[in-house]
């Protein structure tokens, strides 16, 4: 940030309601979201195994961040954004569970053809053509499948720490838990992945 921009940013903190400051904030938010959106989409996609659903979740998280936290210091945006996204993903899984229960209640669950089959949705999470899918590499597919099999909290900790690169404190904010819990979930995730993937995880 240049010296003049820095002075401007300070004046915006003092008088945040001016039009110029609003535009500057929107520009910063746009820049932040543009920088985080693709990784967020992939993280959401691995969690829910559906690109369209993941896109909706990411857009909802964007809207909530802009509406509720635009005024917060921009170094807080990343953990806040991921906290909103993770909450959205958890809600999504809850809705899926309810939906599956309802389907079973109405006799469409069990071995029925209409059951929502997570495995059936898994093979092409990136939505690519078969040729592109081949190029993607088996390693990521194996890793993705193993991550999807992790318990939800371990999956969150692993993806936020490893894929997004959040530190323990940022991951704790994003997950809404203590630093100690993050370390536990992350450690368990790593051990499970090592056991599951073995020598393939290279």
């Amino acid at each position, binding site marked *: 940030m240049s010296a003049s921009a820095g002075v401007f940013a300070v004046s915006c903190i003092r008088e945040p309601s001016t039009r110029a400051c609003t535009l500057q904030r929107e520009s910063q938010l746009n820049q932040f979201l543009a920088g985080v959106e693709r990784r967020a989409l992939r993280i959401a996609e691995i969690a829910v195994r559906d690109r369209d659903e993941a896109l909706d979740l990411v857009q909802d998280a964007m809207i909530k961040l802009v509406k509720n936290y635009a005024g917060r210091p921009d170094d807080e945006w990343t953990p806040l954004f991921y906290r909103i996204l993770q909450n959205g993903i958890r809600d999504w899984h809850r809705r899926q569970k309810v939906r599956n229960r309802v389907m079973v209640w109405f006799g469409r669950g069990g071995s029925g053809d209409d059951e929502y089959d997570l495995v059936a949705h898994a093979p092409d999470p990136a939505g690519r053509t078969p040729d592109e899918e081949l190029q993607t*590499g088996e390693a*990521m597919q194996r890793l993705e499948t193993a991550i999807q099999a992790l318990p939800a909290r371990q999956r969150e900790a692993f993806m936020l720490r490893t894929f997004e690169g959040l530190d323990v404190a940022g991951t704790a904010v994003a997950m809404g838990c203590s630093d100690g819990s993050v370390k536990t979930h992350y450690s368990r995730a790593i051990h499970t992945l090592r056991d599951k993937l073995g020598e393939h995880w290279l």
Partner: protein
Amino acid sequence: MNEPRENKAKELFDDSVDRLDAATLSRLNQARHAALEAAQGPRSMGVWGRWVPATGVAAAALVTVIVMRGPDAVEIPSASVTDFEILLEGESLEMLEDLEFYSWLEASDLETNGNVG
């Protein structure tokens, strides 16, 4: 987090991010702009938006005074009071945009009633 395996996992993930297709990137771009626009919605009214109801009520009251204490000091038919009650209701504030027309209509009614009577 510096374990080679974790680093490899990060590489694989970054590679999958880089491979996102153009259609998906376009949808992300649209989603981002939609989010920024959605947040702008309530703010677009700005400070003036908060004064719209008060301005409407004040304008309606002003019209009432003008009509009741107008130059001819005409007697207001009872129906006109009902009209102003309607005007003063919150849902009818949009009618105030056409105040000039309603003033003219009111004057025409009075003139017509006066001619008939």
